[in-house]
């Protein structure tokens, strides 16, 4: 359950605070959506302090991923399906 290692991803920011990860996504993407805490993306449930930002560029999706001991990572992966889900259910910024 919930293993991020089951997807292929790129880490854009590591061991950051959640606030830093939010600022990074806001600063680097023009297409940004707000998702609620606990939003299911792939097989994980996104942890974070609202508003939780997700950046989209084409079929790539960039999101925060928090681990209890290592802080928050900003991760980027390709998924047309998840992009469409966020575009459909997220709140555009």
């Amino acid at each position, binding site marked *: *359950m*919930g*293993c991020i290692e089951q997807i292929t991803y790129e880490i854009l920011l590591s061991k950051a*605070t*959640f*606030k830093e990860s939010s600022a990074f996504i806001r600063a680097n993407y023009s297409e940004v959506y707000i998702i*609620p*805490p*606990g*939003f*299911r993306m792939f097989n*994980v*449930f996104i*942890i*974070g*302090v*609202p508003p939780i930002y997700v950046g989209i560029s084409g079929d790539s999706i960039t999101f925060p991923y*928090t*681990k*209890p*001991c*290592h*802080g*928050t990572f900003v991760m980027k992966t390709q998924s047309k399906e998840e992009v469409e889900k966020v575009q459909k259910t997220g709140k555009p910024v």
Partner: protein
Amino acid sequence: MNNTNPQHKPQALLLLGCPEVAMQTSLALFTLDLLVTDGINTLIAGNNAALGLVRTADPKGYYVKDMLDLDTAIADLAEKRMDPDICYVFIHNDAGISYLATVNALIGTQAMGIIFGREAKALAQQCTGLQLKNIWARAVHNPGPLKVKISKEIEHWAALNR
């Protein structure tokens, strides 16, 4: 929110953060003892390391009856398979605030942060700024001040939920 069903037996969830600060396991077992003594069904969730420390501290399971993997607990809360009456989130770093905010958004009642460690004051101020309830003490080696606050908090919560 109080459950008005007289058959309802209150349930609590203790969500453990990174076990790097030794204080966490002691505080969790202390909190668990208070809740269990009050007749509250209590579940402990954490990552493997955090649960391993709890298991080591209570090898015969005198206090700990139910444990759950952290990711599974978040999934169960998000998908409404679990909705505890209270959730205490143990916090000593920034990630802990993210977990508290998430749980607070997912459960029907309230989540409360129990904040300790060297950065406790700053973390508590962040939580308060986000309107996340919390109790805190700059406890690193001495759990005394936080024990008092936890006892008062649980006494208050249990009185409201009897």
